[in-house]
């Protein structure tokens, strides 16, 4: 998965400069809700709504270090592509101020919009070959639910965070966050649109803290 690789590369790039000044790391495990659906065969990810709660399926979590970090003026642009009538990635954590591109990789029109309080926007209808690629800058923290006005089943999530230190767990819930600054922080784990767990952490330079979210 070239895109996935790209994603990871992006994450590392964004974290890397900070890691130069700090050497602390956090790793651990987030207890993810049990997936009720059958084992995913096609490894297809989707956003599901249950009782008004949105989560990824299979479950994923975003672990981030909350704090008052100065806003970055030069966060690299991210992408949420539309491919096979789904959003890729389904869940994208970004730092406030990040510009996200929405390339259409399908053969049909898409009309990505969001009514979420964190970001209301409407990209309008656009074709796969639309240039420039429609973009949005997410300048307010919060969860943004992406929808397509043409394909009503499409859901995507962008988690806009105040912090540059965040990482997504794997499907089993393991995470590792490197290059975080030492100090007293709150470590949070976003599990779904309604559930965010948090823990106070004391990060020490050169050490790797183990945190489990139950």
């Amino acid at each position, binding site marked *: 998965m070239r895109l996935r690789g790209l994603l990871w590369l992006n994450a590392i790039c964004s974290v890397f400069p900070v890691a130069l000044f700090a050497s602390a790391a956090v790793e651990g495990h987030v207890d993810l809700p049990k997936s009720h659906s059958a084992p995913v065969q096609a490894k297809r990810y989707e956003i*599901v*709504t*249950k*009782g*008004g709660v949105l989560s990824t399926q299979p479950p994923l979590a975003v672990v981030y270090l909350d704090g008052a970090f100065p806003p970055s003026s030069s966060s690299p642009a991210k992408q949420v592509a539309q491919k096979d009538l789904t959003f890729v990635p389904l869940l994208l954590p970004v730092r406030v101020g990040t510009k996200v591109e929405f390339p259409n990789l399908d053969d049909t029109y898409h009309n990505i*919009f*969001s*009514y*979420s*309080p964190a970001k*209301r926007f409407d990209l309008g209808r656009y074709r796969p070959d639309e240039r420039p690629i429609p973009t949005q800058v997410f300048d307010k923290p919060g969860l943004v*639910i992406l*929808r*397509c*006005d043409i*394909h*009503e*089943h*499409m859901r995507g999530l962008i988690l806009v965070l105040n912090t540059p230190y965040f990482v997504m767990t794997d499907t089993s819930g393991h995470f590792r966050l490197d290059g975080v600054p030492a100090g007293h922080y709150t470590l949070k784990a976003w599990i779904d649109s309604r559930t965010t767990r948090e823990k106070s952490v004391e990060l020490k330079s050169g050490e790797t803290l183990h945190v489990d979210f139950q």
Partner: protein
Amino acid sequence: MSSAAKARDKEAASFRTRLFTAMMIVIATLTALGFYLAQRKVTADAERNLQQIFQTELSSLHQLEELRHAALADRCNVLAAKPRIHAAIEDNAIDLLYPSAKDELRDLMEGEELPPEQRAQWLPAKFYRFLDSTGAVIKPLNPYDVGELDATTEAQLALNKLPDTQQIGYIQENTQSGGETIDEVIAVPIFSTDTGDVISALVIGFKPLELEDKHSGMKSGIWVNGQLHLRALPGSTEASLNDKLAGELVNSDHGENYFRVEVGGAPQLLFYKRLNPASLFPPAYEVCVYPLSHSLAQLHRLRWQIGGAGALLLLGGFVASHLVALRLSVPVKKLALDSKEDRAQRKRAEAALASTTEELERSTRYSADASHQLKSPVTVFRIGLESLLAREDFKPEVYEQISALLHQTHRLTGVIDDLLLLSRMDAGHLQIASTPVDLSKVVDEWLDDLGALPDSPDVKIEKQFPSGLFVAGEKRYTSLIVQNLLENARKYNRPGGRIRVSGHGNSHNVMLTIGNTGRTIPRGENIFERFHHSSTPSAASGHGIGLNLARELARLHGGDLRLVRSENDWTEFEVRFPAVNGVNAVA
């Protein structure tokens, strides 16, 4: 005209009157019955008819509603599928809900995209509102786009919970002009395309569909929230109908029914039917008031027709009864007349019978009295003559005369005896003491006497009479019969003539035949009649009793006397006597 005829006419007239009265009663009863039945039928027909009209109109209304509901359901499904609506509801962007729906529901409010024939049914919506997850109304930011409503009206749109199915309701809208109007609202659930849950509901308000006024004078309205809304009626009538309807709806658990009401003094039929059974909205009823003027007019017409028919029937009946009475009264009259005449005749006959009986009795009594009264002087007379005859100092011609007078007294006595006997027979007092009588001996005795009579003419007597012929009878009367016949044979004989006496007998009868020469009896002359006198004058004439007496006596004995022949100088009588059983052996 006689008084009897007048009475008869009177009788016939009263008969006619009675007949006519009976006919009138029958016809009046039939007319009344016919009218009653017709009235019932007309009323029932009218009710059934109106009920059918009501049901038909209502069902056509329901068809329209169904169309509307189906269209609305489609609309809401489409709406629910809209990501923007979902986004607005689910992503807590309520402020964007109405703007997002606005485009989708624009045609609903304007109804312009529909073809004209559908637009008539699909009336443009007056307003719409969304309900949130609790069933409360989500207030629009800009009510102008979705139909403005005051707070009270808008509050009526809320439901206790979100509905699973379409709900029909009727609300009372306070219009801006200060009046009231009824709106039909339809709440359509909006399902989440993700979970299938009801996430909201769209409540759309319409002007209610109105029943087509196919029936002249029909007024329709809606009853909701204890209030009747029937604009076509004046306020006071509406209020009174409202009370009646409220009472009816409380008492009846039927969804529909009808009853009779008075509107403005005219009878009307009020139908009602629940418009929204099992709805989360308050119950509402379609109310239709149909004037019964049509059926009343029909009834009126029918009343005239039946009344006219009754009158015609009565008239016909009058004529018919008149004719019938006339025809019937003729035999009745005749009958009356006949019976009267019969009565009179009977009375006359009875009177005649009575007088005849009386006369008969009187004559019988008289003849008996006369006989007795006559016999005594005759006896005195005869005794006097006999004493004179016994004297010897008279001239010989005197003796001859005395002797002739004496003979006449004997005759007189015989006549008197005969009359006495006849009167006794007529009175039914004479009875035969039947004993065996030797007829041969009686005949012999009388033949002897005949020869001994002083004035015997010169007749030859032939006797062919067997001795010992016995008859059943009484000797005096048997002898009298024989005497009468022999005397007649002698009396009506001619000089030098003859008398023949013959007889024979069998076990039943004894026949005695006495014939004589001399003048014959003319044919057709009833010689057996009492006091009969021969039509031909003759020297020898009797007193006209003898033959009559002889026949009566013979019949009294059980026999008879008849004239056998009277021709060629020969007259012959035959007497039949009953024989004495076992005595007359000679055949």
